[in-house]
């Protein structure tokens, strides 16, 4: 298939206008020695029907897609109202660039402005940016931002923060002279306040924790925040499952200075991990250190309200190496989907969704932990994920579940050696009672 729009005649006319006899002449500025002398070894071009058939075929090798799945751990399956797909697939949203020319990009800009407002409302913070790449790199950007604000070389990272977020933070800070230390979790699955008290000191820029945390446990953010502020560090809260904000007290009301997270739950399919949506919000005092694009409201010369990208003196294209981040574009289209999702659900819909998650996950927890040889691992309150420990190990159970078309939870042993035989389950509003019962009865079949 070719997507070129020139006829042979037009090509010749253009070449004549340029005074050239062959297209090769256009590349005479490339020394002969550097030009590739052979054709690329790429398979021959496919037509549209062949292309579709090829991807359908490779897609069929993803046998996981048809299974009943209880995987979560930072990637959640939620309902997606059809209007999200319908509206977000409009070419006017899919095919423009970053809104550098605001007069012809008001659609994109107003969506970002609405998105920023929704993120502020949900998190209880003053300002939001236009989005970042994903939850993990957003957590890293939050740590870098806290370091710019406070300038102290240490950050404390909750061990119950998503393991991949912790890894990305480590990658980002490695070359900048920042040290990360981990804060343990207790038997209830919550941040160990004694350990935090022991480790936080005058050299600490920030403490970052997640709620609900990786084990699914809802943290007491008020308590952690108070402790963090006592030592003049910044309190960074990461939210990997923002559907929880439909019900839970926003981090901004618990003293958070920066709130960051993964917005995938808001209208983005699982998609094997991407594209997702990093979000970030903070207190307005830190505006000048805030990374990423920001849309702002203004007026045109006739006084009509409009929107522009603003505060770009923080950004790389103006400040170059002195910018607050190297980030250029955001995940505008993902933020658009989140905006449509949230505006379609509204406050009642979002609350109800969150409430159903709590009810269904707790029902599943009760069903599983009621089985002999299966124990609830942590005593803390949960949102839509929980950890169970399998006395006789998980492998056999997992194998049996798969044979019955079920993907059980995520085995935690490789991520947390101390949680051998422990499994993280996720249950959301998409699971029916029948699904949950099927999981529990299938597990029961292999227990001794």
């Amino acid at each position, binding site marked *: 298939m070719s*997507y070129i729009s020139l006829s042979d005649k037009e090509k010749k006319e253009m070449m004549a206008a340029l005074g050239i006899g062959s297209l090769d002449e256009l590349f005479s500025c490339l020394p002969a020695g550097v030009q590739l002398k052979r054709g690329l070894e790429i398979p021959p071009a496919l037509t549209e029907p062949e292309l*579709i058939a090829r991807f359908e075929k*490779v897609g069929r090798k993803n046998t996981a897609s048809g299974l009943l799945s209880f995987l979560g751990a930072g990637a959640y399956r939620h309902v997606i109202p059809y209007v999200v797909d319908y509206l977000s697939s409009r070419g006017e949203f899919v095919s423009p660039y970053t809104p550098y020319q605001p*007069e012809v990009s008001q659609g994109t800009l107003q969506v970002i402005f*609405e998105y920023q407002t929704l993120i502020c409302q949900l998190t209880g913070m003053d300002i939001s940016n236009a989005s970042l790449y994903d939850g993990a790199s957003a957590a890293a950007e939050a740590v870098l931002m806290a370091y710019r604000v406070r300038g102290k070389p240490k950050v404390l990272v909750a061990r119950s923060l*998503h393991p991949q977020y912790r890894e990305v933070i480590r990658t980002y800070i490695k070359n900048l002279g920042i040290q990360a230390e981990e804060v343990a979790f207790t038997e209830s699955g919550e941040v160990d306040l004694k350990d935090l008290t022991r480790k936080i000191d005058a050299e600490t820029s920030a403490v970052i924790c997640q709620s609900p945390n990786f084990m699914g446990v809802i943290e007491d953010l008020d308590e952690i925040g108070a402790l963090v502020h006592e030592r003049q560090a910044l309190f960074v809260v990461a939210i990997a499952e923002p559907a929880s904000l439909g019900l839970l007290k926003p981090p901004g009301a618990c003293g958070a200075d920066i709130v960051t997270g993964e917005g995938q739950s808001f209208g983005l399919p699982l998609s094997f991990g991407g594209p997702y949506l990093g979000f970030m919000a903070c207190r307005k005092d830190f505006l000048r250190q805030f990374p990423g694009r920001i849309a702002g409201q203004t007026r045109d010369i006739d006084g009509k309200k409009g929107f522009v990208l603003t505060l770009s003196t923080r950004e790389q294209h103006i400040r170059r*190496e002195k910018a607050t981040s*190297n980030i250029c574009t955001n995940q505008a289209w993902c933020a658009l989907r989140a905006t449509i999702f949230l505006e379609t659900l509204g*406050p009642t819909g979002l609350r109800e969704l969150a409430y159903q998650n709590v009810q269904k996950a707790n029902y599943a927890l009760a069903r599983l932990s009621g089985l002999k040889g299966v124990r609830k691992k942590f005593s803390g309150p949960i949102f839509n994920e929980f950890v169970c420990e399998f006395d006789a190990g998980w492998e056999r159970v997992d194998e049996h579940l798969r044979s019955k078309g079920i993907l059980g939870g995520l085995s935690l042993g490789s991520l947390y050696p101390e949680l051998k035989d422990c499994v993280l389950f996720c249950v959301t509003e998409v699971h029916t009672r029948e699904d949950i019962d099927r999981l529990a009865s299938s597990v029961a079949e292999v227990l001794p």
Partner: protein
Amino acid sequence: MIREPLIFEISAKGKRAFGLPKLDVPEDEALIKDFPLRDEIRGFPEVSEIEVVRHFTRLSQTNYCIDTTFYPLGSCTMKYNPKVNEKVAALESFLLSHPYAPEELVQGNLEILKTMEDFLVEITGMDAFTLQPSAGAQGELVGMMIIRACLEQRGNPRQIVLIPDSAHGTNPSSAHTCGYRVEEIKSNEKGTIDLTSLDRAMTEKVAALMITNPNTLGVFESDILKIAEIVHARGGLLYMDGANLNALVGRFRPGDMGIDVIHLNLHKTFSTPHGGGGPGAGPVGVKKELSAHLPIPVVVKSETGYALNLDLPRTIGRVRSFYGNFLVIVKALAYILSLGPEGLKEIAEISVLNSNYIRKSLEGIYHLKYDAPTLHECVFSDKYQKEHGVQNIDIAKRLIDFGLHPPTMSFPLVVHGALMIEPTETESKRDLDIFIGAMKKIAQEAAETPAVVKTAPHASYVRRLDETSAARNPILRWEGEI
């Protein structure tokens, strides 16, 4: 056109646009008794479904985009985004794939990742690729981290990164985020890297030179082999920003010419839609010596199938969650498969033809600071029009009245009043001629009726916006009627 209100302005209590199935498990109200519960979300919108649909449809109609308009934004490669690529990326087998699903149950996804890596290796002449980075800027950061890890392995990470004055702003910022000090290399009169300056600057303290080739003026760095020789002779590494690869596909492979690390922009050269500013993808290619430092996970193929390798002792680590912007990679792979080797080569040929056709047609009417031959884009300036008080921004805004998206403005920084034009290969001669005609007309207006140009746009949804007051008195969210 009437202003589309913010959704918050049309919200009314009790309206709904979506309903969930009734809770089907036994309800236990006591469960949330001890939760830290939130109050009502103040200001959160409540609207009906038709209001949502009209709101976003109307907003979309205020955007110029590739599907409606010629969009010659320089350095952004705004080419047509084939629709079938959206279809294949929306197959349920991809959308429903959980990133933590066991490897043996997502073999199709892993095959896609590995195939894409192999194709990019062949197209660029590099030895290995990571598809992890989410965007070009993250690709740069990852690339510089790999360079740092390699130099540390050799014994000294060094302190400085050299960057030409014509580079994208992300280059110095990425190098800085990786712990390096940035030193600028001045361009010569051709707009390319000056070998004498490079020779002087390239000391034992320099970790790498970051080049863009063709550079942001659209000029090919024809001394590339000598540049590589100088950098390598002093123990440095050569980084290439592949943002402009569109000009070279099938004709020049950076890996054959001394490039050690490169990032590509799948949303530019490989046509995945820009989405109003992301999601993109910024894969990074490296030469053999550096491949041990690639971020994890790395996809490997064995007799039993594909797997993810996490055990890479000298890796820079993980740079984002999971496996990159997977669906973007699917679309780019679909693009490569549908073009094939000849189609890929044609991208470079026709994008360069289109760009030179515009350049030739406007030369003399708009000022061209550098007269070196250019490839896929050309950079004019407003020098002639300034004599009448008309600046590049005025020209850009006036194009809007002709139904055209403006070129990139005021970049690269080495050209004052720059208008950077990149038509790409997918435009028709008719559309190029319409653009050329509009540019000529605007030049004429600038001389005869400059006020018309200076007050443009006249026909757009909003007119020129006050960006200064937006920055001075930031309003960054809706807070009730302001």
